[in-house]
């Protein structure tokens, strides 16, 4: 019975990119001030009030599947909820994936067979379906001004 395991291992490969991108503010798709869009992202259902939530924001399906995010953020966790603002985006279509770095070691931990041992999620609460959440389920529209996303973590 290996199928779910192996397929979900693919998830890691894509989420692992967050680890290198989380602190890299990339200017690729950052908006000019006049049409800037902000997304307030709220995280709920946090089971362990420790560590940080690592956030990756993507503007293409390819990047979401395993490329570089347009923004990476680290959000400290101290209770059952947390939030952050992804600022300065160009209006358009985006998807977010996150993992909860519960032990704060800066990595998405996995068990010896490569399955995540720390919680992960995506925008729209897109489910994992025998593999990582996909762009079609996670994509949302960002318009000029203020936007909101709520992601349930655990």
């Amino acid at each position: 019975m290996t199928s779910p395991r192996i397929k979900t291992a693919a998830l890691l490969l894509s989420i692992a990119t967050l680890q290198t991108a989380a602190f890299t503010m990339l200017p690729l798709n950052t908006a000019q001030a006049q049409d800037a869009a902000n997304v307030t992202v709220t995280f709920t259902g946090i089971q362990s009030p420790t560590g940080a939530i690592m956030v990756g924001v993507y503007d293409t399906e390819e990047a979401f599947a395993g490329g570089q995010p347009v923004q990476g953020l680290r959000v400290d966790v101290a209770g059952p909820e947390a939030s952050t603002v992804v600022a300065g985006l160009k209006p358009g279509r985006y998807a977010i994936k996150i993992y909860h770095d519960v032990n704060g070691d800066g990595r998405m931990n996995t068990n010896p067979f490569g399955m995540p041992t720390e919680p992960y999620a995506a925008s729209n609460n897109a489910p994992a379906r025998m593999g990582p959440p996909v762009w079609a389920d996670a994509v949302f529209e960002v318009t000029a001004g203020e936007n909101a996303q709520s992601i349930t973590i655990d």
Partner: protein
Amino acid sequence: MNRRSFLTAAAGFAAVAFNPDVLYAASAGVGDWTLGVADVEADLAPQALRRVHGRAPADLAGKLYRNGPAKFHRPGGSVSHWFDGDGLMRRYAIDDGQVSLSARFVDTAKRRADTAADAVVTPGFGTPGSKRASVGGADDVNAANISVMMAGSELWALWEAGSPIVMDPDTLETRGPKTLRPDLKGMPFLAHPRVDPDGTVWNLGVAGRRAVVWRLGADGALQSADVINLPRASYLHDFTATARHLVLVLQPWIHDRLVTPIVNGYSWRPEAGTQILVIDKADLSRRRVFETDPFFFFHMGDAWEETDGTIRFDICTSPDPKFAVEGARAMVEGRKPVLTASPDLRLISLHPDGRTRIERAGLAAEFPKADPRFAGLARTKTAALGYGPGDNPFHQTVDVRDWKRDRVDSFDFGPRHLLEEMVFVPRPGGSAEFDGWLVGTGINLDARATELHVFDARRVAAGPVCSWRADVALPISLHGIFKEA
């Protein structure tokens, strides 16, 4: 035909079409053994069983826990394999000659998702599932439906590709997946741990050509978990152990394709033969591989080692995996039974010079069980269940094979009973092998009720010394344990 009779006929057709059991029964006049794979709709509140035969042994007291699939069909889509039904934990409490039965479904993520969808959307061993299913890890598809163990004060419902699911041993309330150490969350845990006489628990979890070797104390606490490599990605449902060695039989049913359902990803390669991997418990890097003829198997008995180093164990083998691939599907799909060769009880000897010898018991049987006080130690007896004639896939005889005296002590319940695995319970104060009882359950098809039977393990042919009957028939379960009072 007037409109009224047409509607009546149409309604009847609809009922047939939507109930696979009825469909097959109506079309082929099948035996009513399909009661063994009937759905249970709700948990069972404690009920007293009625004694229908004999007298209860005065010093037999404790709880028989049994687990097995019990919910197969849902309006929007059903399982397509016997092994994919939701696990129902049954608890038979025996005390002072009285028996109380209760049963609760293991409250798994799979059962919650399928219940919410009113359809079996979760993929399984032989069920493809739906793209609608949310599957982020093994425990999202964990049916917790194969077996059960006690780990300290916790009752664990076991599957084989996910975590143990913790239950309350008295109320059978589900507490959730067990994480033995944070970095081992979601690691697989087979349904057939081996327990040393001192209570040390050995188990495996398998992922392709890698396995984790679990070692737990008698209190259920993790002592070690080490990842080892395997020579091939065999389907491994069970393994065995001597006092010094782990014994892994690597059958030539090998996972080589990443497809859904999982069973379709295995290839039967008899030309590759069977490999038997023997691993030193004290140093997992010390290993030896034996080669023998190809066979398929699910279950083994405890192993032991002779003074000259020869390792022996019993095993129920089949010529091929046809039952796992086809037979167990047809059982729950209401199709004509797929006739498959009955498993054959054998004793395998691994000699120090590398020779492998296979001795046949001349007994078609499954669910081998031994006296747990002799786990890893030399012994002579194996209890198992034998088959009746016809297309009934279940069991009707209780057999005890004596390897030393080359004889079988057997009791035949006849074709109107579907038997479930018998476990051995030692007689308090006794120490000789099989000084105690075989305790097991089954369905009485005439009474349409589940029964509990107790045998004197050394006088099986005399029939049960006591039998009790429930008010309901619970579907056939797979494996159980007896927790002495």
